[in-house]
């Protein structure tokens, strides 16, 4: 009997667990609100107990007894190692010694094949069809840190050939892109969507399909992607285990604030 038949899980749970598995023990995990925070909490509670959750607002290693609904939620201030401010938080990521230990978890409205992100606007920048929140700390994190993990809804209009607005740097335009731009090394490591997991080719820095979720085909993913996605290396993703799900649900989001709310 296949493991996955023994319990049900939602797409969002799958995504949170997929991202949590990317976190290594000892990582400093920069996260935002919503699913990225949940993934960071899951990682710390499951596979990376020595990882440190870190918010751009300045909270280092928050206890998170309840799930914050914003990175400035008072819940991130409780029993931290240090309560500082934005200046210190971003400096920690730009700092050459600590920055290289940070993994950033980001989301966006659009992504291109090099993992560059748009979280600012659709259409003309000065009078957009759709306006989003803007960079926040995303551009900073994507500029500074060693590794980023990106959450996306997998839709053709979001996986685009060309971003309407280029908010946060991925690999820019290929292997020399970041260096040419003047950015430190490091860049996106994985894109986690509701359909599968994408990674970036070591040489070309182009996105490829690394894993499909159970029941999803490469062709279905390609159909939802606005550029050609190499699927040669695609494997089937190992779904969340009962243990992972239990911790995610019971310890990380017992109120269902993220797992059960429409995004």
């Amino acid at each position, binding site marked *: 009997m296949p493991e996955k038949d023994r319990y049900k899980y939602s797409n969002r749970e799958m995504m949170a667990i997929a991202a949590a598995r990317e976190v290594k023990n000892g990582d400093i995990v920069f996260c935002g609100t919503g699913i990225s925070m949940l993934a960071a909490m899951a990682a710390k509670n499951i596979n990376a107990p020595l990882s440190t959750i870190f918010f751009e607002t300045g909270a280092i290693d928050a206890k998170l007894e309840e799930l914050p609904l914003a990175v400035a939620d*008072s819940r991130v201030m409780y029993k931290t190692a240090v309560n500082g401010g*934005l200046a210190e938080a971003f400096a920690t990521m730009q700092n050459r010694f600590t920055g290289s230990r940070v993994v950033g978890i980001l989301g966006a409205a659009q992504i291109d094949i090099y993992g560059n992100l748009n979280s600012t606007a659709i259409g003309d920048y*000065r009078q957009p069809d759709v306006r989003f929140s803007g*960079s926040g700390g995303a551009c900073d994190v994507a500029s500074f840190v060693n590794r980023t993990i990106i959450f996306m809804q997998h839709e053709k209009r979001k996986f685009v050939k060309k971003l309407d607005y280029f908010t946060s740097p991925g690999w820019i335009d290929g292997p020399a892109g970041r260096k040419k731009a003047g950015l430190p090394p490091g860049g996106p490591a994985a894109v986690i969507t509701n359909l599968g997991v994408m990674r970036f080719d070591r040489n070309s820095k182009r996105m490829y399909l690394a894993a499909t979720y159970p029941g999803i085909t490469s062709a279905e993913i390609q159909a939802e992607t606005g550029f050609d996605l190499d699927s040669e290396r695609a494997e089937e993703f190992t779904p969340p285990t009962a243990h992972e799900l239990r911790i995610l649900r019971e310890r990380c989001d017992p109120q269902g604030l993220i797992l059960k709310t429409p995004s």
Partner: protein
Amino acid sequence: MNSRDDKVTTLDRAINLLVPDGCHLSIGGFTINRNPMAAVYEVIRQRKKELHLYAHSNGQGVDELIGGGCVKRLEIAYAGSGRFAPTCIRFRKAVENGTLEVEDYSNFQMTLRFMAGAMGVPFLPTRSGLGTDIIKKWGFSEDLRTADEKLPDRKLAIIDNPFGNWSETPKLVLVPAINPDVTIIHVQQADKRGNARIQGLTFADVEQAKAARHLIITCEELVEEEFMRQEPDRNQISFLNVDAVIHIPWGAYPTACYRHYDYDPDHLNRYRAAAADEFRYRTYLEEKVFNLKDHREFIAQTNSEQLKKLIADPETGYAKALKRSGE
């Protein structure tokens, strides 16, 4: 800035005196925490117009000022209220309708810009944004920048590192200083001279405060100066920077004030619903802002059972097990 010994005043007077139409204003707080909401409502109530607003990641305060029709231009990194409005709704409408000019920076860039203003330098350097449209696309036109002497002529500048590859950094983004005409922040404690203490995360409030020509502080608790001086390690802002101090309990409501009260999820959800609809938003403004005399009346009108639920648990600093989901 002054050396008066007693700067305590009313919000009505402080806003009237220090926030003229068209002025360059900065407000503290972050998304749904410690926004100076009492002051924001007073600015709207006094029908201030054409403000040039600066914030980094301010959600509720920025959105209400925009919704209230007070803001002409905005420089910001992130206009969102966390899970309550991933993109602020009146902000979004105003940008899409072309009624608000926006200049986008990153969060660190905005922080550095306030820090530069506080430090008295025209810019600070960072590597953030190299290669992106934050560098390439400017929201304010060059003409506007040239014409307005309160704006630097460039959104930012890129330079080669004059120290070669020192710090393994070949080039940098320089972001220009902000020196707002006035900054408004809400703090947990202040004394009548203006010495102020923020509890919990300070966000960029301290930099915003010190960058400004004038500083208005609203506080949850107005305490004795002697109390503030017992533990000066915990104070961030001295009287040297402060123009006006206003004692307003619940002054950040409906956003949170760590160790005092939580954000009000019900109110924020109702706000979101109202903000999405022009007619309902007009009604909201009339009922919750224009028809009320001041913040005290707003708080008095608010369901006292609900307020009680928001009061912070003394151990954790927030309202434990507060019902926060759904509409």
